């Protein structure tokens, strides 16, 4: 029972990070019908930018809270500009092209980002300097650090804010209208190019925060880290119903919990043959099961191509 509670807590924290990244996939898919495979790598750039900022400022003796705010701020800024440029340079010229063209372009952008990062940061793992000493406390028999709690609360705040923004703001309504019928949105006075660019900026900025969280959570960064994170977040988006913002949140949290529970019990279940390092299997097992059993995802509308 203690393992169970512990894995649920771990899963929620991890899942909230997946959910943030999944939002970037699902928002772009909703509005363009494009799986932006470069999104995981944008998150990686956010992670590495924040690592560098943390290293520089920690060496200069800046207080930890200031470091964290500046690291997050720089990551958001860099990723927002990156997202905006990628949309403008790589995807917009292909807006009216067959669907396969932008998809392959997305994979190309992903590789470009990975190896640009390898050039800038090198191929070795970069570790996080010790700037914070999280307090430990116990909740329902599970150990939780103040860092984990902070990550989870911040992620939930961002998600709630985003859901509210899409539901209630003028821009959010324009995003939904563009998603449902871009031509008619144009007739209403919406500059759909601006809305699409804004969607990329928003998704990338949220991805940047997720990147910072991953760095703080694992204490490591690497030029290839966006690949696995991106695949899992994509799985989370599909699990929730790709294109559905609430679904991305649900899918992310669920995937985090499934993965943590599996990691906690896999050793016992297989008599010690498989260890918790096999946890990644479960994310993709989930992806396969969803694609077979309910391709439209938990909250997607069955049957619709847009789902």
């Amino acid at each position, binding site marked *: 029972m203690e393992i169970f509670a512990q894995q649920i807590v771990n899963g929620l924290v991890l899942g909230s990070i997946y959910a943030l990244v999944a939002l970037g996939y699902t928002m772009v898919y909703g509005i363009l019908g494009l799986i932006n495979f470069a999104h995981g790598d944008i998150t990686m750039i956010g992670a590495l930018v924040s690592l560098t900022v943390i290293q520089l400022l920690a060496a200069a003796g800046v207080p930890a809270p200031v470091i964290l705010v500046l690291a997050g701020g720089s990551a958001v800024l860099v990723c927002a500009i990156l997202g905006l440029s990628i949309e403008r340079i790589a995807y917009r010229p292909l807006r009216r092209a067959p669907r396969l063209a932008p998809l392959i372009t997305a994979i190309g952008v992903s590789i470009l980002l990975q190896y640009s990062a390898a050039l800038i940061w090198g191929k070795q793992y970069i570790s996080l300097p010790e700037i914070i000493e999280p307090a430990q406390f116990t909740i329902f028999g599970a150990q939780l650090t103040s860092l984990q709690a902070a990550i989870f609360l911040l992620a939930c705040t961002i998600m709630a804010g985003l859901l509210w923004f899409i539901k209630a703001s003028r821009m959010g309504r324009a995003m*939904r*209208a563009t998603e*449902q019928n871009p*031509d008619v*949105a*144009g*007739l*209403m006075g919406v*500059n759909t190019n601006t809305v699409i660019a804004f969607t990329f900026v928003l998704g990338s900025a949220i991805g940047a925060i997720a990147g910072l969280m991953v760095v703080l959570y694992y204490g490591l960064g690497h030029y290839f880290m966006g690949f696995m994170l991106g695949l899992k977040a994509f799985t989370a988006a599909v699990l929730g119903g790709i294109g559905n913002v609430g679904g991305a949140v649900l899918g992310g949290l669920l995937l985090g919990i499934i993965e943590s529970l599996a990691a906690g019990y896999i050793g016992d279940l297989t008599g010690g043959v498989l260890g918790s390092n096999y946890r990644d299997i479960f994310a993709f097992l989930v992806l396969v099961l969803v694609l077979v059993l309910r391709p439209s995802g938990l909250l997607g509308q069955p049957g619709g191509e847009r789902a």
Partner: protein
Amino acid sequence: MLTVHKLEVAYGGIKAVKGIDLTVGRGEVVALIGANGAGKSSTLKALSGLLKPSAGRIDYDGAEITGKPAYHLVRRGLAMVPEGRGVFPRLTVVENLAMGAYIHDDKAAITRDFDRAYTLFPRLAERRAQPAGTLSGGEQQMLAMARALMCRPRLLLLDEPSMGLAPLMVQKIFETVRAVAAEGVTMLLVEQNAKLALETCDRGYVMESGVIVLADNAKTLLSSPQVRQAYLGE
């Protein structure tokens, strides 16, 4: 108010509109009739900025607007009710109407626009919290018209408002067209239902295979043997 000169619209290499001239004067209600595939909708799409014309010139309100995007034109008072209604299916009725008011930010006036929409179509008021995709075809057409009126158009383009509707609903929609015209909104109406369109309008153009073959006032067209034979089934 609207002057179209030698307008051409092409899809790939195929010309749908082959150099038409057309004018709509301030306060006029003008019909553009013709058979399926005559190029009526393509003309309207070019006028509203949804399609870039391949040749020709469009002047609106004293300035050239050829090739200007739709989101720019609606700010200048040129709105369109698109073919097939084009409601946002997963937005509620209220949200659809609010999209019509997207270009405005004067709260008090927008509230008055909402009231006017609900007075014109009480049915929409009853269904205001429903997603537009759950409305009937006629209700969706009402919503599309009400939404376009929320833009406060000075020139309203209507693309096939009677398409796929029951006769009673068609009557209701055309009553609204007349009511809106009576408010002084200039209109250009594309219709396959030639009789109803000509009865509602001041003047009419008849389009065939991308060119305008007849242009006259509506009464004359209604009694012209050519129109009666080709479009009124006599």
